[in-house]
């Protein structure tokens, strides 16, 4: 068989080249559609949340929503103040982060700067397992194990409380924080570590004074992801914190978070279109705005602290 000449293929109208062009266009279209679908889903969610929330604010004034100190949409005389739910969300998140950020950072530092290959091989799958446990299990772990344990120290602790829920969420998000933090630290080039060791620094000084600051942009992403996870966590709080909207900053009391309220109410049978029904969407929108805010902060931090090595 005579081999075709290269010159034939180089002609722009050669069938092989035409097919190749069409293939390229097709692939590009498919990839674009895949990327665009995520944008459409997001836009769709925002659209539904906003359109269902608007009628709510026809019944409830914005000031009431923000200043009323009770949240009782299902009572005969309903009150619609988001503060108790925000308080519960804020409290569980802070408790979770107080546990997860220091611990996650320490674990990441150990894995990235101290552990040898063997220790890493053993520890990392265990950590990942922590992230694979279903959240329902964590919920009952908080209710049936952590709370009784805490009651040994604090005999007056009620069976449902924010503290146990927050702590367990903290444990739950440790792997998210530690694994992203470790990635960020390992991405710091070796020559910066060598520069530090060369002037006589210890391993700990190198880790805390050079590697962590140099990885700060990546580490802030890890923290933001942790915050988002904690804000959005539902099961643990729904099971262990008591589902009672409660305007308090005392972690030893029961409370409800935005997410816990949403599951609680959506499991009931509220008439479609009622204010109670709409309140779910308003709560959802509030949560979305919160999470979005943290993501924007995270984005700004990453930009501000992006290191050029």
């Amino acid at each position, binding site marked *: 068989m005579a081999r075709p000449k290269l010159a034939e293929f180089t002609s722009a109208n050669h069938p092989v080249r035409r097919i190749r062009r069409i293939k390229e266009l097709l692939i590009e279209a498919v990839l674009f559609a895949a990327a665009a679908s995520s944008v459409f889903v997001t836009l769709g969610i925002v659209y539904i949340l906003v359109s269902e929330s608007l009628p709510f604010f026809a019944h409830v004034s914005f000031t009431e929503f923000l200043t009323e100190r009770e949240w009782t949409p299902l009572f005969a005389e309903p009150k619609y103040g988001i503060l108790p739910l925000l308080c519960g969300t804020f409290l569980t998140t802070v408790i979770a982060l107080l546990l997860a950020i220091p611990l996650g950072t320490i674990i990441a530092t150990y894995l990235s700067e101290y552990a*040898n290959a063997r220790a890493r091989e053993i520890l990392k799958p265990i950590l990942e397992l922590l992230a694979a446990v279903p959240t329902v299990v964590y919920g009952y772990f908080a209710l049936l194990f952590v709370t009784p344990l805490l009651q040994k120290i604090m005999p007056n602790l009620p069976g449902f409380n924010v503290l146990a829920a927050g702590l367990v969420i903290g444990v739950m998000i440790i792997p998210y924080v530690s694994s992203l933090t470790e990635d960020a630290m390992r991405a710091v080039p070796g*020559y*910066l*570590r*060598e*520069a*530090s*060791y*060369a*002037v*006589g*620094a*210890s391993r700990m*000084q190198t880790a805390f*004074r*050079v590697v962590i*600051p*140099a990885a700060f942009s990546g580490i802030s992403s890890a923290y933001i992801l942790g915050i988002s996870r904690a804000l959005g966590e539902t099961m643990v709080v729904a099971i262990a914190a008591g589902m009672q909207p409660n305007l308090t900053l005392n972690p030893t009391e029961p409370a409800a978070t935005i997410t816990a309220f949403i599951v609680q109410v959506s499991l009931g049978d509220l008439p479609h279109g009622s204010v109670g029904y709409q309140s779910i969407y308003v709560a959802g929108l509030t949560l979305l705005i919160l999470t979005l805010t943290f993501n924007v902060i995270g984005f700004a931090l990453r930009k501000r602290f992006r*290191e*050029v*090595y």
Partner: protein
Amino acid sequence: MVKAEVKNLNFSYGEKQVLKNVSMPIYDNKITALIGPSGCGKTTLLRCFNRMHDLYKGAKYDGQILLHPDEVNILARDIDPMEVRMRIGMVFQKPNPFPKSIYENVVYGLKVRGIKRRSFLQERCEQSLQAAGLWGEVKDRLNSGAQMLSGGQQQRLCIARALAVEPELLLLDEPTSALDPISTSHIEDLIVDLKKTVTIVIVTHNLHQAARVSDRTAFMYLGDLIEFDETSKMFTTPSDKRTENYITGRFG
């Protein structure tokens, strides 16, 4: 006066032997140049002095490097590498300032030693930058990022960082190979100036540089120390054929 003495040093990465029974003196307040073709083990030898190999697995070495005046064998297992690095500074081939301010870069070694007094740190920062010939260019922007400096300035900053802790011995691994000719001659002048206060070992591929700045030269080939002599003698009347071939550009 001898500052340090390498004695029967063998080194291997895993199974691969890279330094073979190397012995040589390092003279006090002199500049010793290590030359030789690529891969002959210059960097490996240099990094033995500050125990940099201890950071990685698979490096095996035996022999001694005695550091005077106390004659401590810095390669001994019971000597803490951190203690060694407190006395022996290093500047790397590629400038590697920390992503911190110029000031923080210079005083890093002092802070690591627990020194906190601000007036002392500032004074030392100025002295070191003066010694590294960088003070005039950066004195108005000590708090701006080190990454803003040019490559040559960054390398002088790294020299200042090493000098700030007053090392007894300064190791330089091809400190000018990433720099333009002007920055290079700047740093060469600086190195010659520095030998008043510190003993220097410099690895270089630039034979003119070795001839210009060093007092002694060691020629290495495939892990062996072939010849060690006064630089002027080495470059005019080398005693080994391989040395002669190398410095006349016949291989390498």
